[in-house]
């Protein structure tokens, strides 16, 4: 275990160094928000590939998806169709967002909404939603670090606090350049780990056939759908679709997209980023391998499972299957895989707060320098919030945190994505729809004791379990459209600072 820890600390130290060196890379004036928070909008296809890959495939990928497979079987595989659907959406829609942001100097989605609909209130709602939805997502990354540290026998809160300080310090000094640079190392480690895992572990377990054969039929596939209840199948499809619609609305995804040097970079990346989805699919299978390997029956892992539940499945599998030095590499891959998105998420939240709350409401006359200083400060506060979240709440089923974030962030879809194509929806109707979506989404989540997000609706006598985010989005859209008819009939002039050519 000492060897694993040494390798881990060595790699962790290396990326910390990189994080600070990054401030000198493609040097820009880091006292400007778009330089600190968007890397100067100068990232080409290769860097954006690493950045978005590091951003979208997080500790969530490594810990929570296999944890769900380990706990619930086939249902956890929804992450695969989810990431399949993300890229057609990214390809079709996001070049438009890039173009308008580039033309008007927008840094956040809320900037765009403010310009498009001329409504600071709606922009505030979008910004606040982004920040609130991202906080638990950052917490999820910290849980990822906590799990691997615990697996190496390091307990307590202080190691997490040290990781937090390191992360906060280089994000503060280097901005988006730091995670972009670290993402390269992260990917290298991740691909090495996965390649080893999918070759070595099945061999130890007697091949893929044996792994799948050892699983109970109820875990191997989704439950059957009947006319009375569509069961796991509708839950699976709606979880995948809802998550796909939500993912790119997250502030950190938008930050990654907007840091591209050209809109062509986005299209090209939509086509090549699925390489990460293959890795995701293979990682998901690790959850089934952990089941087949019987990690939960090994007394050495009992304490880990007691602390982290199913989230301990993959670390336990690695401990059981790899030599000590490689455990260090694999755990470093997970921990660094958590640092990259955590940095981007906190930067994205900081951009939102500074642009759409601080400059809009608190200090409209702030200088560019004050603006970026505020953003740097907020990036620390946001991470601190996530740290308190992690220390204060039980770590079980980290994936649920992220699913709640999905319910919140998907409510910005009508304003942001539909707004890219039309301004027919009235800002007040969008605000009402947003409120209705959030209220219904949280009500559904509450009715499921805050532990699940698949809410069952009954339609013509058929029970249809659905992802609450998708249902609440329907509520949101219904209200937005219905009220737009009303408001558009009476309302006077509306301002839209964008013109059709800004979107091309």
């Amino acid at each position: 275990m000492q060897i694993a820890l040494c390798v881990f600390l060595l790699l962790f130290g290396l990326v910390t160094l990189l994080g600070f060196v990054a401030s000198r890379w493609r040097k820009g004036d880091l006292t400007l928000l778009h330089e600190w928070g968007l890397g100067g909008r100068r990232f080409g296809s290769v860097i954006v590939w690493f950045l978005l890959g590091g951003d979208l495939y997080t500790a969530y990928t490594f810990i929570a998806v296999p944890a769900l497979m380990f706990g619930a079987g086939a249902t956890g595989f929804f992450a695969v169709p989810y990431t399949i659907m993300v890229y057609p959406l990214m390809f079709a829609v996001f070049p438009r967002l890039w173009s308008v942001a580039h033309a008007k100097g927008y840094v956040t989605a809320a900037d765009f909404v403010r310009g498009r609909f001329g409504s600071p209130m709606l922009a505030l709602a979008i910004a606040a939603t982004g920040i609130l939805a991202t906080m638990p997502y950052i917490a999820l990354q910290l849980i990822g670090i906590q799990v691997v540290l615990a697996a190496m026998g390091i307990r307590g809160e202080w190691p997490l606090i040290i990781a937090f300080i390191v992360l906060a310090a280089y994000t503060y000094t280097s901005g988006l350049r730091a995670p972009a640079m670290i993402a390269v190392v992260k990917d290298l480690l991740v691909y090495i780990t996965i390649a080893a895992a999918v070759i070595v572990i099945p061999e130890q377990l007697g091949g893929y056939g044996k792994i799948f054969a050892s699983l109970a039929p109820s875990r191997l596939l989704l439950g059957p759908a009947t006319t009375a209840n569509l069961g796991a199948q509708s839950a699976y499809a709606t979880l995948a679709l809802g998550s796909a619609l939500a993912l790119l609305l997250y502030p950190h995804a938008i930050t990654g997209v907007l840091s591209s040097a050209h809109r062509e970079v986005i299209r090209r990346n939509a086509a090549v980023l699925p390489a990460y989805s293959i890795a995701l699919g293979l990682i998901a299978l690790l959850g089934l391998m952990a089941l087949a390997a019987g990690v939960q029956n090994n007394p050495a892992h009992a304490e880990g499972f007691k602390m982290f539940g199913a989230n301990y499945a993959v670390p336990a599998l690695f401990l059981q299957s790899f030599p000590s030095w490689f455990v260090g590499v694999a755990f470093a891959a997970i921990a660094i895989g958590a640092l990259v998105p955590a940095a981007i998420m906190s930067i994205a939240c900081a951009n939102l707060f500074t642009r759409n709350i601080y400059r809009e409401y608190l200090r409209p006359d702030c200088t560019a320098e004050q603006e970026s200083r505020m953003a740097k400060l907020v990036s620390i506060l946001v991470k601190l919030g996530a740290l308190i979240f992690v220390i204060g709440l039980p770590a079980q089923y980290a994936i649920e945190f992220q699913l709640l974030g999905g319910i919140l962030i998907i409510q910005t879809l009508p304003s942001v994505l539909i707004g890219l194509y039309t301004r027919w929806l009235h800002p007040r109707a969008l605000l009402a729809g947003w409120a209705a979506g959030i209220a219904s989404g949280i009500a559904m989540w509450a009715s499921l004791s805050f532990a699940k997000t698949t809410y069952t609706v009954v339609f013509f006598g058929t029970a249809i379990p659905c992802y609450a985010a998708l249902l609440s989005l329907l509520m949101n859209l219904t209200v937005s459209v219905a009220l737009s008819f009303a408001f558009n009939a009476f309302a006077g002039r509306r301002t839209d600072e964008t013109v059709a050519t800004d979107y091309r």
Partner: protein
Amino acid sequence: MARKVFYAFLLLIPCVAVLWTPFYNRVTPEIVGIPFFYWYQLLWIPIGSALLLVLNCLWRAEH
């Protein structure tokens, strides 16, 4: 216009393929012991990627 509809259709193919769960929620046929449910969905990752590459080429040829 017709071309745009065709592009949208291409974009929707992988989505429909993975959303229609009754089609792939089965064990057979297996490949190297991996049930259909798993390899079918994994297979759609490279297909989806290839579709986007083709679309990107078409798009660039046009603009």
